[in-house]
């Protein structure tokens, strides 16, 4: 398993951007229309990190279209990666770590799908994956770094080293990763797609610049003036964004910094399903939470207003 030229071809990536409209116009659309921009075989990068600001509403809408042959990249892949494996949507996972978190132990789905060779998992160090997106965001084929040298991770993706042209020291040449599509969830945007994020920045701003197509869901759509009064808070300019959808609780039951807290009990119930039924437990979950609900409102109704309000109360409490 080695990286392909397509991932770091900065000239092709540049030409792709040059040929694309970079509109300051309206970006608002529906979830279904946004995720329809994903084609079978595309490489996707998800924003957020682990169970923080994951674009879950987009992932669910995407899986309802039964996509095939995708490559998905995320710095710390959480259970959305497991859904994609069990749904048969992915050919490769690119990450630095995959699981739900410390209390839930090793992922049985990762074990089943990766150990059997069904879905290859290409591992990078957390920083190296961040630098892959940053190199792409900078329009470069690679960035030099001091990380990952001497480890077995160098061989996994076939990373190369370079001799520094000034000092002669050996440096890792971290290859760029230009995904076809970025899927991000943000706190607020105006209808033109100018996006603001509170709290954790994660890698979203780099991923947005790295990708050829950018899909965004936002907790809130705010008037243009609200963005213009605080332009320093904008981390993704509208001309980068291809589709924007208003989706409150768009990363729930993952957290959205300062807006709502995550639901560890929900993760435990999900993992219990896997403990009892293996991958069939994930299938059950997909039927109930992904394929079942016709709309996002139907999805939220599965949790109930009281749970949503409580997550919101806890989320606010942690920043006040």
């Amino acid at each position, binding site marked *: 398993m080695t990286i392909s030229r397509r991932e770091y071809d900065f000239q092709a990536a540049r030409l792709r951007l040059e040929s694309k409209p970079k509109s300051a116009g309206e970006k608002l659309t529906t979830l279904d229309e946004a995720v329809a921009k994903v084609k079978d075989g595309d490489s996707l990068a998800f924003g957020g*990190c682990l169970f923080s600001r994951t674009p879950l509403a987009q992932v669910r809408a995407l899986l309802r279209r039964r996509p095939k042959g995708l490559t998905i990249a995320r710095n710390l892949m959480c259970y959305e990666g497991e859904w994609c494996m069990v749904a048969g949507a992915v050919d490769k996972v690119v990450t630095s*770590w995959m699981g739900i978190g*410390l209390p839930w132990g090793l992922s049985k789905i990762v074990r089943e799908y990766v150990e059997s060779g069904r879905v290859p998992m290409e*591992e990078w160090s*957390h920083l190296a994956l961040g630098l892959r*997106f940053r190199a792409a965001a900078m329009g470069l084929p690679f960035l030099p770094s*001091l990380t990952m*040298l001497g480890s077995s991770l160098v061989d996994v993706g076939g990373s190369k080293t370079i001799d520094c042209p000034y000092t002669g020291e050996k440096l890792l040449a971290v290859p760029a990763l230009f995904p076809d599509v970025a899927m991000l969830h943000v706190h607020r945007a105006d209808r033109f797609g100018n996006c603001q994020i509170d709290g954790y920045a994660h890698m979203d701003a780099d991923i947005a610049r790295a990708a050829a197509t950018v899909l965004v869901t936002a907790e809130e759509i705010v008037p243009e003036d609200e963005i213009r009064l605080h332009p320093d808070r904008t981390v993704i300019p509208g001309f980068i964004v291809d589709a924007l959808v208003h989706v409150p609780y768009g990363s729930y039951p993952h957290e959205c910094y300062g807006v709502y807290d995550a639901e560890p009990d929900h993760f435990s119930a999900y993992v219990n399903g896997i403990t009892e039924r293996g991958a069939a437990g994930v299938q059950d979950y997909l039927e109930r939470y992904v394929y079942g609900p016709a709309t996002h409102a139907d999805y939220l109704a599965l949790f109930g207003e009281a749970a949503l309000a409580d997550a919101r109360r806890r989320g606010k409490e942690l920043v006040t």
Partner: protein
Amino acid sequence: MSGALDGVTVNELLAVMGARELKDNTTVFTGVGAPMMASGLAQRMHAPRLTMVIEGGIVGPRWKPGSLAISTNEMRAAYRAQMLTGITDAFLLAQRGFLDVGFIGGAQIDRYGNLNTTAIGGSYDKPKVRLPGSGGANDIISLCREVIILTAHEKRRFSETVDFITSPGWLEGHDSRRRRGLLFGGVSRVVTTLGLFGFDPESRRMRLEALHAGVTVDDVRANTGFEVEVSDRLTTTKPPSEEELGILRMLDPARQFIG
């Protein structure tokens, strides 16, 4: 688990011994679990001017007792932080050289402090057991000035060889780490449930430097998969004090992390 003192859990022991390694007026790259407990304890004992950096992009948090983080990227980890930046930029603080110490753990460790958290047995493409992966561990061990490994001491973890080097310690010893391009840092300490290890400055092989109370060198040998070298100045650690344990239990009253 062997080595835990009476009434002291594995994670309490690791947190106390880890905390004692940290100095005031320094910076530490820390994670969740025992590293978080160790850092929080050190700050309340002898190191009030210790700054914690966490891979979520967090600088200088002041965690709320009873509301500790289960991931390095969730809101609790950033509680009352002094700065929040991106993940890549948090690691770049370490690459620049701002991080004095980093804490990590590991599923499998060899005598040179190389760690495996990727895969056990088989091949990379078809491993016998797929572990979660590096996360930030490789970056911490590559980029911090010193690294302290916190781990339970079990024979299956302390292995003659690691199947995959996720996080490079001293590689094959001597100057091999430097020769591979890792110009800075290295593992300075391995804190286990049986004792404390350092590394021989020449061979870079792990060396037992202190035993916890009630543990013998034979206990260490029986629980280690490689030959145990012993310092000629072997000492015994002071057991966790009531004050240290009291602070840990105040931080984690539900014993979610200290066990």
